[in-house]
């Protein structure tokens, strides 16, 4: 009986996700729709997410026979409701579709993590509540700081000091120094430094409208990236580098500078490749994982086994063996989704990530404040690069770099950082009250 439900649910889950994805693609043009159309579309979308979450939770409940799953389901639905109410109280959200996507990514995360390990799922749910509250408070704080962009050097200093501390005393995970432990709490400072870094670069650019802005931003960015490379956190280093390059491009609109900087980055990359053996072994694991399947290529091979064996429709939730993939709950969660829910669902997920990225740029485009316009673009770039690095690494599109999948991977630091970014996006129209005079036109 249960196996029939699981098998049948592959199709229903696919249907919900597919409907959601199609609505997502339509909503890329939400700025052109009237309020009524827009709210109808986003309501249908919200229903799809809810159905997806209920359907998946029922399977998990039937298989695991654990009533906690149903309790979690109820609490999760309440949390989602609260998030949208909270945002509507705080401001007029810049994009309704973004909220639906956030809820979809979180649902995907809850379902997959509960399936892998119920305790990880509960922990992630608690992280989500904490992140929501913290992000809410931080946004209020930012709004009340007079001309926050003037503090750019403070942000840079805090960020660099945090990274240096990680470099010296950080604990090593999977060959990279990533996290700090304070008592029982372990967190990844680089996740928060991302936001400080955005405020720093955007602040430099809008404060000095001449060459000095470019110079300060470049020097600051270089220091961040070099410390990250030395800490062997290559994925994050790449995210910081791309963010800097593209923000400068948006601000100065200069293709030649972009080209030159890409050239410098390329030379640096080749130097790093020759210098660090761990980068070379990542490349080997990428080009031919089966040749090193029992060693460096084990993880990516397991990931590809999972995706390939799952096929288009997946094995059905709980029918696969995603736990064979090392660190599946963090960096390789996408493979677990693809194995059990199927490649069609995982392609829909990629489309939703793409839509989320485009929607952020949409909001940035329509932002009336030049500082937040840059910050929003920065958020869009960080989100896109990180999603591409993660998913691309899992499906062997690019070498694996060990970054998390935004909103979906297990882990508090990444989630909180993404939540803060998300709240900044949604509140972007209200952020500039304190800094009048910076409006465009």
């Amino acid at each position: 009986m249960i196996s029939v439900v699981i098998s049948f649910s592959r199709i229903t889950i696919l249907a919900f996700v597919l409907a959601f994805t199609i609505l997502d693609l339509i909503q890329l043009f939400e700025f052109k729709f009237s309020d009524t159309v827009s709210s109808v579309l986003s309501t249908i979308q919200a229903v799809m997410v809810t159905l997806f979450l209920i359907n998946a939770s029922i399977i998990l409940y039937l298989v695991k026979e654990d009533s906690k799953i149903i309790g979690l389901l109820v609490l999760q639905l309440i949390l989602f409701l609260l998030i949208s109410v909270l945002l509507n109280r705080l401001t007029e959200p810049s994009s309704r579709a973004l909220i639906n996507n956030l809820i979809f990514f979180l649902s995907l995360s809850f379902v997959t993590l509960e399936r892998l390990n119920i305790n990880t799922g509960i922990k992630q749910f608690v992280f989500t509540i904490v992140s929501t509250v913290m992000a809410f408070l931080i946004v209020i704080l930012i709004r009340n700081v007079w001309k926050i962009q003037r503090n750019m050097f403070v942000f840079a200093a805090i960020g660099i000091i945090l990274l240096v501390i990680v470099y010296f005393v950080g604990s090593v995970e999977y060959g990279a120094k990533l996290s700090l432990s304070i008592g029982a709490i372990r967190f990844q400072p680089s996740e928060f430094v991302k936001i400080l870094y955005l405020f720093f670069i955007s602040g430099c650019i809008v404060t000095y409208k001449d060459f000095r802005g470019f110079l300060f931003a470049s020097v600051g960015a270089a220091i961040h990236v070099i410390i990250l490379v030395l800490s062997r956190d290559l994925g994050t280093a790449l995210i910081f580098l791309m963010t800097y390059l593209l923000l400068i491009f948006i601000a100065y609109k200069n293709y030649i500078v972009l080209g030159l900087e890409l050239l410098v980055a390329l030379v640096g990359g080749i130097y790093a490749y020759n210098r660090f053996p761990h980068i070379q072994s990542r490349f080997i694991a990428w080009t031919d994982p089966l040749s090193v399947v029992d060693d460096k290529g084990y993880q990516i091979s397991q990931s590809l086994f999972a995706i390939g064996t799952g096929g288009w429709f997946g094995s059905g939730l709980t029918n696969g063996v995603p736990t064979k993939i090392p660190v599946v709950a963090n960096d390789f969660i996408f493979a677990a989704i693809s194995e059990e829910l199927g490649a069609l669902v995982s392609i829909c997920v990629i489309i939703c990530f793409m839509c989320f990225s485009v929607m952020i740029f949409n909001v940035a485009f329509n932002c009336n404040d030049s500082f937040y316009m840059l910050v929003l673009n920065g958020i869009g770039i960080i989100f896109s690069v990180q999603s591409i690095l993660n998913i691309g690494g899992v499906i062997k599109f690019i070498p694996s770099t060990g970054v998390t999948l935004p909103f979906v991977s297990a882990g508090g630091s990444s989630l909180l950082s993404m939540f803060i970014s998300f709240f900044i996006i949604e509140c972007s129209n209200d952020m500039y009250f304190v800094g009048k005079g910076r409006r465009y036109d």
Partner: protein
Amino acid sequence: MTKNKYSKKNIRKEIYVIAIFFAAIFVAMIVYLARYVQSGSRDFIYNSYNSRFSVFADDVTRGTIYTSDGHIIAKTTYNEDKKEIRKYPDERLFCHSVGYVDKGMSGLEAEYSFDLLKSHIDLSEQINNTLVGKKSPGDSLYTTFDYDTQKAAYESFGMFEGAVVAIEPDTGKVIAMVSKPDFDPNTIAEYWDDITDDSKKKSVLLNRATAGAYPPGSTFKIVTTVAFLRANNGDDSFEYNCKGKIAIDDYTIHCSGNKSHGNEDLLKAFSNSCNSAYAYIGLNLDKDVFTDTSEKLLFNQDLPTRLYNVKKSSFSIENQSDSVIAQTAIGQGETTVSPLHMCMLVSAIANGGELMKPYLADKIVSEEGDIVSEVKPESYGSILSENEVSLLNKYMEAVVMDGTAEKVDFGDINVFGKTGTAEYTKNKSITHSWFVGYGVDENGDKLAIAVIMEGAGYGSKYAAPLAAKVFNAYFD
């Protein structure tokens, strides 16, 4: 400064450049993932580190395996308890190459398990089947086997052990492949202990056609002949007076039946299969040319085939005494060869020197008859020159017309071949019976064959008549 020039759209168009840039990468990832799932995942799913394999069988009924002419080799049916079982209607006929699914998997069943457990029927049909909890039918595998030829090869063996391989020279299609002793894949689980009993030394599961390591006997004179031609820039002038035996140091090589062949040229030496003449050729050959020729003819190499479980043939005259080199030249000594390899050599001769890579799996076809994937014949390149091919043709024709295979009745078929009688123990009266060669019918169709019958005796008495039956079945 018009307002239009500095409108938001103009000032901020770089934002869309970047948005489109990222969107393009996302789309590229989707395409990459889709391609991987559709076609690239095979190697990964097959990998022995993948433990997920069996989940496919929950959704898809294992597909059917056919011969090229549509006979069912293996199919999935249901037993009295409505449980799925794998049925092999011809029992032992294809056992080594097709393999089995109980007790682990082997043969084509193992190599193409992935394809047999994939369904390429209409997607809506698949969704429908999933909804009602029905299994979708897996794709079928069409092999290159010709049913009648395979049956003729199998049945002509009688009680003997050994192997037959027959290949279509211009494509590399394996038309027949038999290995004996054999087993019944329908009941392999039942008799497993008996079949794998090492104490009987029968190696029933070994596919002798691809993985057997036999002394080539006189069939190796083909290689020695090519080496002789290469050492003499293609010139086949040769004279030798055979006295029925030749002494090398304190070792004597006898001609078959101690017969003296008298004055011989190369053609005579080949068609009489004169051991003395070939031992003499071997002793006077440049060692490097001999080694180089044998390696060009795929000894000590991975055979270029698309078959699995293939054994390398070995050849070595490095640091060997003259007597061993002389024995090597007549196909004794340390040399070992698989029947598949000998068949590939004659298939290249039949195909004007160009070797086509042998293959067994021709195409994957969905239940609805659509071709999912199809193997194209693939050339390994030319391993013999035109001159070598035309001389070998002449010699191999002479073997059948008035040489060692003179008395064999090949019917209307034009046959070019070489017999072999290979000693494999100290007892020189027990020998393997070899025949390698190819037949051409009146339409110009060709079939290359290698036959070995273990311990049977003279090649001309046992292996060559078996080849004749196979030719007759194929060209009928």
